[in-house]
């Protein structure tokens, strides 16, 4: 596809379960971002991958959150022992990976809506 895709589009889980959210970036994009959009909140940065560099994990809210990017392409965001406050829309974005975020436009996927019961 031409855009960023995310799966599943919706995920309902029970408190305490682990979940995995997937992001397929635009082909050729070396930069990948995860954001979280909670009700009434703006988008909150979670993690950033750029090529083979160590990811910027500064936005991850707790050690229950982790992310991987395999082969420089697909990324998986994992939330362990989910809590109700984890309920949100998780958005993935990718970009070409140029030096400046001004010139390097981020393209967003449609998001995964996570509901923790």
């Amino acid at each position, binding site marked *: 596809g031409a855009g960023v895709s995310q799966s599943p589009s919706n995920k309902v889980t029970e408190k305490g379960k682990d979940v995995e959210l997937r992001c397929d970036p635009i082909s050729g994009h070396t930069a990948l971002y995860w954001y979280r959009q909670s009700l009434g*909140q*703006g988008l*909150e*940065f979670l993690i950033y991958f750029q090529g083979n560099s160590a990811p910027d994990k500064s936005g991850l809210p707790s050690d229950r959150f982790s992310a991987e990017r395999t082969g420089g392409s697909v990324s998986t965001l994992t939330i362990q022992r989910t809590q109700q406050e984890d309920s949100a829309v998780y958005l993935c974005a990718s970009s070409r990976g140029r030096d400046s975020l001004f010139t390097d*436009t981020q393209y967003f996927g449609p998001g995964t809506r996570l509901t923790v019961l």
Partner: protein
Amino acid sequence: AQSVTQPDIHITVSEGASLELRCNYSYGATPYLFWYVQSPGQGLQLLLKYFSGDTLVQGIKGFEAEFKRSQSSFNLRKPSVHWSDAAEYFCAATGTGANNLFFGTGTRLTVIP
């Protein structure tokens, strides 16, 4: 600390009326500023962006935004709103060396006939 404030949670305008969505930023250095739109079920789409030069920038879909350094504002405007403009609008900021965008909480736009 970096922050972006969108003071209006929800705005309702009539189709054909003009629109202004407010955005204020707090950023140490000269920021890069953006406006994104999120339609239901869609990803965020970039409307326009500003870093330097002419303080009035034109974007897609007939939108424009004006940077006012003295007011730390970057308000989005459209002269005549269409029903298809109903969506959530996000202002964002970042700067040199940053790895991510800082977003406001968004303004939901409703357009009435």
